[in-house]
């Protein structure tokens, strides 16, 4: 065990830290479009300096960075409180899936524009009738010469209104068993056959969308993996979602907790005393400090395991599940600290929004129920739930 950085890793960190100090883009502007443009510019700047797709092979525009460098990168982003990048799904899920299952042509075609944020990616897996039971999806794709014709409906497609490409799973063999007849497509979002309808959330904003797909066309060279093997490719995407994003998520919790502690230090709590000096609040803040440390350490231990073993395993499910609980507790405590202002939307630090937004954490990217099933069955080897 050695949790110190090697000289090379230290050099990497110092370089990055220096770069971030010089290039931090400041606070994100308000408004969906302005914020998105801001993130796109920020990603391009990162990319130009060689910080995007850090762990991707150099031949595809990455830096071939080690997992530890990737982790250092995430840590430094927390420390500097940088905003998000524009192409989150392309970087975390689309790119890795194309690298793992794509053809050489696909890699050359798609990867550079992911890195530069020229082409934004979204993900079309879930459907109204296929949530946790993803493989029951009904969107169909029918072969027509060199193209596939896709018809169906997708939900929860983040960034769909900004996206050029949708990584999508559709049923290509209605006769085959549930998991067998699926194929993984990269669908061009810029066609009339694809309609994006924003899905308003309980927070009031529309971060997600519905896709209505009516005979959309996908050329056959945009299949990832082989026809009928879409399920395996989709699992890769989901594993990357849970593993890679989980690392990012713990980082976001660290930031949020630091902000909450600041808030508590400035808030007048019960009977007028400073909230962070209240013994009951202190206990809960301390517990969150501990839990967020667990998230961080588990993510690092996961990296060490990948370094030894190769691919991310089902343990990633543990991190996503745990993160959702920690983030929900954190935002609930923020509401308690807000006192009567918990009733107002415009609370300091945007806590009311975050509190509502956190309710989705245990649903998006795999519900907690499904993640517990995965842990029980695939990590602990318990019998399949019937």
């Amino acid at each position, binding site marked *: 065990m050695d949790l110190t950085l090697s000289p090379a890793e230290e050099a990497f960190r110092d370089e990055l830290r220096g770069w971030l100090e010089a290039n931090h883009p400041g606070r994100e502007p308000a408004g969906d479009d302005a914020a998105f443009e801001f993130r796109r510019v920020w990603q391009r700047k990162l990319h130009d300096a060689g910080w995007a797709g850090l762990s991707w092979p150099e031949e595809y525009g990455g830096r071939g960075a080690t997992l530890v460098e990737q982790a250092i990168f995430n840590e430094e982003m927390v420390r500097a409180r940088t905003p998000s990048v524009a192409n989150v799904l392309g970087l975390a899920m689309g790119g890795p899936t194309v690298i793992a299952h794509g053809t050489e042509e696909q890699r050359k075609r798609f990867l550079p524009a992911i890195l530069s944020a020229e082409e934004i990616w979204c993900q079309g897996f879930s459907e*109204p009738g296929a949530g946790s039971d993803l493989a*029951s999806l009904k969107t169909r794709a029918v072969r027509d010469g060199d193209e596939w014709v896709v018809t169906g409906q997708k939900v929860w497609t983040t960034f769909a209104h900004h996206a050029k490409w949708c990584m999508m799973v559709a049923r290509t063999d209605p006769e085959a068993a549930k998991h067998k007849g699926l194929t993984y497509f990269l669908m061009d979002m810029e066609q009339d056959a694809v309609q994006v309808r924003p899905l308003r959330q*309980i927070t009031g904003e529309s971060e997600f969308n519905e896709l209505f797909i009516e005979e959309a066309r996908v050329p056959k060279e945009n299949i990832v993996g082989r026809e009928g093997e879409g399920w395996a490719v989709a699992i890769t995407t989901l594993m990357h979602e849970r593993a890679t994003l989980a690392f990012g998520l713990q980082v976001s919790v660290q930031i949020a907790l630091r902000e909450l502690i600041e808030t508590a230090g400035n808030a007048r709590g019960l009977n007028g005393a400073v909230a962070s000096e209240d013994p009951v609040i202190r206990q809960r803040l301390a517990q969150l400090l501990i839990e967020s440390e667990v998230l961080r350490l588990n993510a690092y231990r996961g990296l060490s395991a990948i370094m030894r073993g190769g691919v991310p395993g089902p343990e990633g499910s543990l991190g996503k599940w745990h993160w959702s609980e920690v983030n929900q507790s954190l935002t609930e405590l923020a509401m*308690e600290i807000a*006192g*009567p202002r*918990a*009733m107002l939307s*415009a609370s300091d630090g945007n806590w009311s929004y975050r509190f509502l937004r956190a309710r*989705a954490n245990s649903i998006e990217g795999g519900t907690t129920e499904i993640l517990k099933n995965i842990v029980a069955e695939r990590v602990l080897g318990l019998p399949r739930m019937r």
Partner: protein
Amino acid sequence: MNFGFTDDQQAIKRTAREFLKERYPAATVRRLAEEERGFTEEQWQEVAELGWPGVIVPEDSDGLGLGTVELVVIAEEMGYALAPTPWFSTTAATLMLVAAGTEAQRERWLGALARGEARGTLAVWDEHAGWAPDHSELEPDADGKLTATKIAVPDAGSADFLIISGADGRHWLIEASDSGVRISPEEAIDPTRKLFRVELSRAAAEPLQGAGEAIARAYATVVTMLAAENVGVGQRAMEMAVTYAKDRAQFDRPIGSYQAVSHRCAQMLLEVEGSRSLCYWAAWALDHEPDTGPRAGSMAKAYAGDAGFRVTASALQVHGGIGFTYEHDLHFFLKRAHANAHAFGDSRWHRDRVADLAGL
């Protein structure tokens, strides 16, 4: 010794359920939620015709002269329907006047309140004080005028007068029409109860009289009403979750046949029923056992505050993604449950009071 409602109480409950279901279907609630005022005068008149604003107004002031149990019966149904109406806020103000109003104040307002001709509200939080609902630092000027800002005041925009809390448990009545009063809407998490910012600038203020104990009991009644709302809110959210769990299939069977879902629903029942028991007991005690009342009220508020949020959040989890959409009605219930949990003292504060009142 009987927890059952009397025939009269049953009749009130039945009427409330039917009236609110008829007049406040989901589409109406949704529409009112998006408006600034949140209700129409016609809607208020209908409520007034049922006599609800006068439930605890003495009969000689045109009220029904009933008690807290009847208030709680109506409040629970209000929560169940999530009807946006200023009935809660105006009843809170009425409770303060009944408990501690001067003869003149009662004379001037109680009849009008009972007849639905006037509305009031209760403003407790100073802009810069701590979160305790009894922690106002507001002092009057030497000539008795008030200058202060109160936040998160329910329905102040449509109230005729405000009861304002101040330091040392003092309270004043201020007319909304006073030139020193400025009322502006605040953006509330729960759009079915409108909150306002009230800025007072040397506003004319009439002090209430009445002993601290009567005021304490009025506050206990207010929080018991909020707890009862959360019973109704939780009951409705639970019913939505159970229905969804029966209908929605994943992996070829209804999700309600999975213990992860069915045990979640069982937990909702435990918490809703616990909240209900405490509310009914608190209501009864406030009417019949003055020594127990405030403790019971704080118990009900603490428990139903926590339970209301947990049950609605749990119902959202049962619904999955669809429950997170604005199009689904569930979030309105979650937001009300949450707001109620933080209004007039959160669970932490009421547990502290329970400890105090239990002699700990």
